[in-house]
């Protein structure tokens, strides 16, 4: 049984026509999948549909064999938003991380244990009592992940997790995600990160899946990537040394 099974999914916002069209996607337990595509391709809508925020116009979404009911609480699934600020609303880090665990109705010692574990896993030790708005960008991102981890979801959806992070924070985030056992679906423009994390990449454009396969094959396919407004990541471009024109074209030095 696959963890997530999406069949013939069509999704749209009221009065604006379909954003996703008859989309099929299956994710196995523990699998890490990158989701790429231009802005407006439908990545966010897909996440909203999977999380049950946006009711589908047609098609089915099954998580662990059960249909995802719009508006219901699915602890097996966690969504990490692009803007960390939108999802950190408790006064301190500990309280925020504990929020989901408390709502699962777990006994308090179990909550405490899970919180401590999630905070440690995300490298946030020592910041337990810090007000969330005083955390740095990278810490906020990891705090969101800790708040999701504490519910022990089977699938985590991450929307642009590395955006607006500096190199060090980005590195830490990649190290953290690479150690996780959960299945991850990561939407990102940071193709280098996806290359490091995800063996499999899905390219979507205009609400349809245009490619689904091994990361190196999809991201390294110049023609395919260019057709959907993407650039092949630097590390997949064979070159010794490059110089750049001012018009932005990349030219290989002799």
């Amino acid at each position, binding site marked *: 049984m696959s963890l997530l099974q999406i069949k013939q999914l069509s999704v749209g916002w009221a009065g604006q026509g379909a954003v996703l069209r008859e989309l099929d996607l299956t994710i196995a337990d523990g699998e890490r999948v990158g989701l790429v595509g231009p802005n407006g391709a439908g990545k966010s809508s897909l996440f909203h549909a999977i999380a049950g925020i946006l009711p589908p116009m047609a098609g089915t979404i099954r998580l662990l064999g059960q249909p995802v009911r719009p508006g219901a609480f699915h602890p097996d699934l966690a969504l990490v938003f692009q803007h960390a600020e939108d999802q950190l609303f*408790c006064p301190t880090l500990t309280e925020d991380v504990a929020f989901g665990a408390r709502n699962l109705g777990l006994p308090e010692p179990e909550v405490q244990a899970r919180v401590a574990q999630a905070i440690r896993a995300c490298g946030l030790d020592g910041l337990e009592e810090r007000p969330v708005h005083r955390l740095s960008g990278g810490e906020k991102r990891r705090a969101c992940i800790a708040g999701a981890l504490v519910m022990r979801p089977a699938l985590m959806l991450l929307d642009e997790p590395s955006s607006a992070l500096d190199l060090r924070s980005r590195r830490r985030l990649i190290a953290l995600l690479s150690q996780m056992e959960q299945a991850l679906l990561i939407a990102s423009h940071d193709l280098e990160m996806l290359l490091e994390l995800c063996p499999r990449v899905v390219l979507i454009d205009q609400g349809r899946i245009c490619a689904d396969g091994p990361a190196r094959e999809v991201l390294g396919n110049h023609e395919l990537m260019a057709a959907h407004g993407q650039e092949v990541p630097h590390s997949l471009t064979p070159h010794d040394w490059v110089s750049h024109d001012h018009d932005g074209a990349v030219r290989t030095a002799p």
Partner: protein
Amino acid sequence: MAEALPTASLSARARLVMAFILAFGIAALQNLVALPIAVALAIGALVCAPERRAVLYRLRPAALLALMFLIVLPFITSGETLVQSGPLRITKEGAHASMLIAGRMMVIVTLVMVLLAPVSAFRLVGALRALGLPALIADLAMLTLRYLDEVTAELQRARVARALRGGATGLRGLPDHALLLATSLIRAQIRAERLWAAMRLRGYGMRHGTLPTPLAMRDWTAIAGTGAVALALVALDRSL
């Protein structure tokens, strides 16, 4: 069609002044003599307005309220019996008062909406500034409007995030709403600091009040015409 209307080219300032004149003129009516004329005027304005769909939509809260007055007031006012059925008794005074209140309400809201619907909220605030609203209040209104959609969207995303993490529903969820609001206020404070830096760097407060452009002839004509209509209605109302 919109171009054909004489009101299409009116400035936001003239529209605001006209809206105030009409609103206060209608609010002054005390009898049911002039009111039907005002109702006819409002219906005519609504039919001619290019934005009638939007206006109709915005009339809904007022219509609901007016309906409530129409239904309730006649029964709870003492006076001369008009109709009686069992314990329920409609009085003449009650019927008069309810029609007057509901009529004035609908006429005012309709006329104001028809006049102001074509103007964006920003331009309305700009018009208020040109009409002498203190700069501090006008700037406050502009900045509030500018970030309103965004802050609303942030709050809604935060609510979704709370729900996805199993936030309690009903009364037990109330404290969570306080937390969301607190977070929003802290974000507002941080945003305000950045905003202030950006405003100062681009010279906020350096400009000495520029004089607003004078109103056009058609604006003055429209205002004068509106004033005359309002005066005529009130005079007719008081003549009895």
